């Protein structure tokens, strides 16, 4: 919200306090000043200019060339406005000025061959209004050369303050002044409303009836007859413009002025357009159509609170008035509405209609139901001053169930317990008095406070503690210098994933973090995805059921910048529905922690010591084995081949008992095509939740082997269809427990071996933990293995 410093000074005298301090203390107290706008700086290098001469531009019909003087020098200026005349005083931006609406620094230019040393500005270009019909013409009595800010009286300083949703009371100048009063301990002056009233009463002219007192607990109406609607006086227009409002007419401008003065939204009806001069507050009919002030048709529901007359709706309560009862230049008699509406009702309507107004913004945060009469009278006073008319003697005030006054106690020891610090009692009392709280009781241990009607946010003792602390200053509460720590066991649920990251980075993988939201058709390829009800764009409508799409996107991003050799991983959640029904509980969907690794491009690039080699399946498998070996007891793992699945062309799936803990291989070409990836990608997905759930055996020291190991090698020629693992199984099954390790160290295929044959070479490792083996017993075992392989696999021993 924009707050004018000049305006603030109507209510609190701040002129002697340095601006920095005001800004700083307001910010620290929770009214964060996000921007300070010094109006005079807006118009630097823009002065009052006098047009001495004007001639047609020789090369352009619509342009003219003027001689503008600032009193000292004459400038040649090309101007496109049709209303420019010799003898006018105009806002003249010199070379070097920054045009406020565009933020562009003005430079000397040649326009169609004519030199232009500056610019004559329109109101729009100056950021004063939307008016762009020609240049702005200034009062002819202004002296040329005078800074424009001075000429326009725009010497205000504006604060843009971010007001948190709890502080509805601070959405006005008096609201801000109240905090400043407490911060600087100086009084505020609320304007006295003294009305010159006529001798008729509001309720003799108009009537108000509330059908829905839950959503409209209070409605105040004040009648003013015979007003003269016209433009507002300069001072009023200037104030409204300074905080970014557009002046409309004197009555509407007054309602806006009071809104920004005290925070009470007001609405002025043309009384003669109200059928029966009657106001009825009730909900709309379902499907009712209504045209608001902005000339837009709105469709309403039976939950929307409306202001109606005897026949029709005339305003959407608390949100926006209707075109049918609008105050126009022909209006004579008006009814000022000053009401309190239920915040939640206004919020629902405003949200549903997508219509946020200054009024709805305040009503939905909770306005001051205690100020409605004052606000109506204040408006009447100002209208009377600037629009004349006869002001009714009183107000119609329909307030059937007055709100109860709130009283809350504040215990000094509780304040100390929460803050860890004592604020002097006198200080506390002063803070609350300045904020407008009445101290109704006071003893040694506590004070009892009457909560002002504008402080809906103060509901409990702790809210009072916060008030005292924020005004006193958080900076005055000391920081403890030591803390005590309990000795119970500390838990770190993120440690497992960190471990995984350590393994992967040491293997050369780079971690990525990708978007969990995917396009629908992509998400559907990987499972039964969960949709987002209100997506940001069609590219991000569903939660990822797999980490593959994110990985492929990451690879694509790198290929685009010619980075082709990649080793990447991501740890993240994947999401999937268990069924297609409505998701009602956490059991209706999966949210699982997943790990994906991917390799693509060259495993070894050109090197002086090595040959180029592409990543292949066995690189992937090797990484998977290494990772699993580090994470769990990998002896119990079962590996199965997978072929032509949705995501993998060929690969493996790894089980622990019956549970699949991971799967991967060569990514399907069709998927790669979706991402324009033209190189093979090998990828593996681990189900981290499953892996975490596998009980880990405690590590125990194993005695180091004291006796020598004995090695034997052999090579067999077998049918090419026989898999390595089959041969290993036969060797294992035919050997004694002296055999501890089998290593396949060579595969060889050639015509010389016979068609459809291959040679597999193994190294066998024998030892015993308690003695040295003899050559004879090793040979016996070794030959048993050879015979078994020969018999069971129809293998031919090629060499030993």
């Amino acid at each position: 919200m924009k707050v004018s410093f000049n305006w603030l000074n109507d209510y609190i005298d701040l002129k002697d306090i340095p601006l920095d301090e005001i800004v700083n203390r307001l910010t620290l107290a929770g009214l964060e000043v996000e921007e300070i706008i010094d109006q005079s700086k807006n118009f630097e290098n823009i002065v009052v200019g006098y047009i001495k001469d004007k001639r047609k531009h020789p090369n352009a019909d619509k342009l003219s060339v003027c001689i503008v003087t600032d009193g000292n020098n004459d400038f040649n200026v090309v101007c496109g406005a049709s209303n420019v005349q010799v003898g006018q005083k105009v806002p003249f931006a010199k070379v070097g000025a920054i045009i406020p609406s565009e933020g562009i620094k003005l430079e000397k230019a040649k326009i169609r061959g004519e030199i232009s040393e500056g610019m004559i500005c329109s109101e729009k270009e100056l950021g004063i209004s939307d008016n762009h019909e020609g240049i702005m013409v200034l009062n002819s009595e202004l002296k040329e050369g005078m800074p424009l800010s001075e000429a326009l009286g725009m010497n205000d300083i504006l604060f843009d303050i971010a007001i948190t949703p709890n502080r509805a009371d601070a959405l006005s100048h008096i609201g801000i002044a109240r905090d400043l009063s407490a911060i600087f301990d100086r009084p505020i002056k609320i304007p006295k409303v003294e009305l010159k009233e006529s001798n008729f009463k509001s309720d003799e002219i108009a009537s108000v009836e509330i059908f829905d007192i839950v959503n409209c607990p209070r409605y105040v109406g004040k009648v003013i007859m015979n007003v003269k609607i016209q433009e507002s006086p300069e001072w009023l227009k200037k104030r409204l413009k300074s905080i970014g409002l557009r002046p409309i007419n004197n009555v509407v401008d007054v309602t806006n002025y009071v809104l920004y003065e005290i925070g009470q939204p007001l609405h002025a009806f043309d009384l003669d357009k109200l059928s029966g001069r009657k106001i009825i507050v009730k909900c709309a009919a379902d499907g009712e159509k209504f045209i608001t002030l902005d000339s837009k048709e709105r469709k309403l529901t039976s939950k929307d609170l409306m202001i109606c007359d005897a026949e029709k709706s005339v305003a959407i309560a608390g949100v926006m008035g209707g075109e049918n009862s609008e105050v126009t230049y022909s209006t004579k008699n008006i009814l000022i509405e000053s009401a309190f509406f239920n915040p939640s009702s206004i919020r629902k309507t405003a949200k549903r209609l997508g219509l946020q107004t200054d009024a709805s913004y305040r009503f939905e945060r909770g306005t001051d139901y205690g100020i409605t009469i004052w606000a109506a009278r204040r408006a009447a006073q100002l209208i009377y001053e600037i629009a004349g008319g006869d002001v009714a003697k009183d107000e119609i005030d329909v307030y059937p169930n007055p709100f109860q006054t709130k009283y809350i106690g504040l215990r000094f020891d509780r304040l100390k317990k929460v803050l860890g610090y004592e604020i002097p009692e006198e200080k506390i009392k002063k803070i609350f008095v300045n904020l407008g709280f009445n101290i109704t009781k006071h003893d040694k241990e506590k004070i009892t406070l009457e909560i002002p009607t504008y402080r809906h946010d103060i509901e409990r003792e702790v809210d009072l503690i916060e008030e005292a602390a924020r005004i006193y200053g958080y900076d005055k509460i000391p920081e403890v210098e030591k803390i005590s720590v309990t000795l119970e066991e500390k838990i770190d649920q993120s440690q497992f994933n960190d471990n995984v990251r350590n393994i992967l980075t040491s293997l050369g993988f780079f971690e990525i973090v990708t978007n969990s939201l995917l396009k629908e058709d992509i998400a559907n390829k990987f499972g039964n995805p969960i949709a987002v009800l209100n997506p940001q764009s069609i590219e991000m409508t569903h939660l990822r059921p797999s980490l593959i799409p994110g990985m492929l996107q990451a690879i694509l991003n790198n290929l685009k910048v010619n980075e082709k050799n990649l080793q990447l991983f991501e740890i993240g959640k994947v999401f999937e529905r268990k069924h297609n029904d409505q998701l009602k509980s956490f059991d209706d969907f999966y949210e699982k922690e997943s790990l994906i690794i991917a390799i693509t491009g060259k495993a070894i690039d050109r090197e002086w010591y090595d040959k180029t080699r592409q990543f292949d399946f066995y690189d992937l498998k090797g990484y998977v084995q290494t990772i699993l070996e580090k994470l769990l007891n990998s002896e119990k793992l079962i590996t199965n081949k997978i072929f032509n699945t949705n995501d993998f062309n060929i690969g493996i799936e790894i089980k622990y008992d019956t549970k699949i803990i991971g799967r991967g291989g060569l990514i399907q070409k069709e998927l790669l095509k979706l991402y324009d990836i033209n190189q093979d990608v090998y990828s593996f997905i681990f189900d981290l939740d499953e892996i975490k759930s596998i009980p880990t055996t405690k590590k125990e020291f194993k005695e180091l082997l004291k006796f020598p190991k004995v090695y034997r090698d052999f090579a067999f020629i077998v049918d090419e269809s026989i898999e390595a693992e089959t041969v290993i199984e036969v060797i294992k099954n035919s050997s004694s427990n002296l055999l501890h390790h089998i290593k396949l160290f060579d595969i060889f295929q050639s015509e010389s071996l016979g068609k459809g044959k291959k040679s597999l070479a193994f190294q066998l490792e024998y030892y015993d933990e308690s003695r040295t083996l003899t050559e004879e017993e090793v040979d016996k075992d070794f030959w048993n293995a050879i015979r078994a392989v020969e018999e069971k696999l129809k293998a031919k021993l090629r060499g030993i």
Partner: protein
Amino acid sequence: MINKISETRSIFDNDFLQISDPQSLEELRIKYLGRKGIIQQLFDEFKEIPRDEKKVVGQALNELKNYIQSRYEELKAKFEEEKSKQELLFDVTLPGRVKTIGSKHLITQTLNEIKSIFKSLGFSVYEGPEIESDYNNFEALNFPADHPARDMQDTFFINENFLLRTHTSPVQIRLMKSMKPPIRAIMPGKVYRNEVISAKSYCLFHQVEGLYVDKDVTFAELKGTLVAFLKQFFGKDVKYRFRASFFPFTDPSAELDVWWQPKGKEGRWLEVLGCGMVDPNVFINVGIDPEEYVGYAFGMGIERTAMRKYGIDDIRILFDSDIRFLSQF
């Protein structure tokens, strides 16, 4: 004996021809000239021969010894010369066989740094789900339905019951419901906001939530703990301020700003985290007596903190997976 000496000489000549490297030359020296070498053996035999033969044999033996010695020296010198020539040619400037070590994402690295600081202050680390119930994400944290406070966080909804958590604060609720105080924990994780993707905001980011509940927790301790964190993370000269603010789930609430002074630019305050004392309504919602227990909570965004620390000005680069970015950290 004379025969044996000349035989030895021809065997030596034969052996000598096989020598191709310094190591086998050394073996040859030991074989012939070593303390138990062939020459020594011949000298031992020489002691036993008749006196009259000694002159002739002795001369022959000495000749053999000198011969072997000089051939050895000759070749040794040659090898040494070759070696020094090779050493001269050995190109140490050839690139080494470099191995790549990967890296954790900058977000992870920053998170780990934050985690280790808070772990050293006695905090545990807990995690929670990204799809949350509306209750845990809002209601239990004292965001009433239809309250403008909900506008503070643009939300991705799944349906009326579920949403993508907008902050890590619901993990507070899960913890307080499942364990008894004292609770001192941080809760890192991914959160979502329904915002247009730009240099300043992304549809998801990471937060670390902190919570401490016990009988004697104070705002002064919250301040002290967070300042200790700031000093470790940003350096001990960090300039900071606690500013009053509003969060539905804390009361009093504050934001912690850090003074940011980019080189050659105007300095400004930047918000680092939000914090405050746990609101009594939150305690009531999780069944903790707000009169008996007090607590503090805080939450900070990882991306913004990392961007500040490393001078990154576009958040999107964190999610682009560009290896040229990843390999910088």
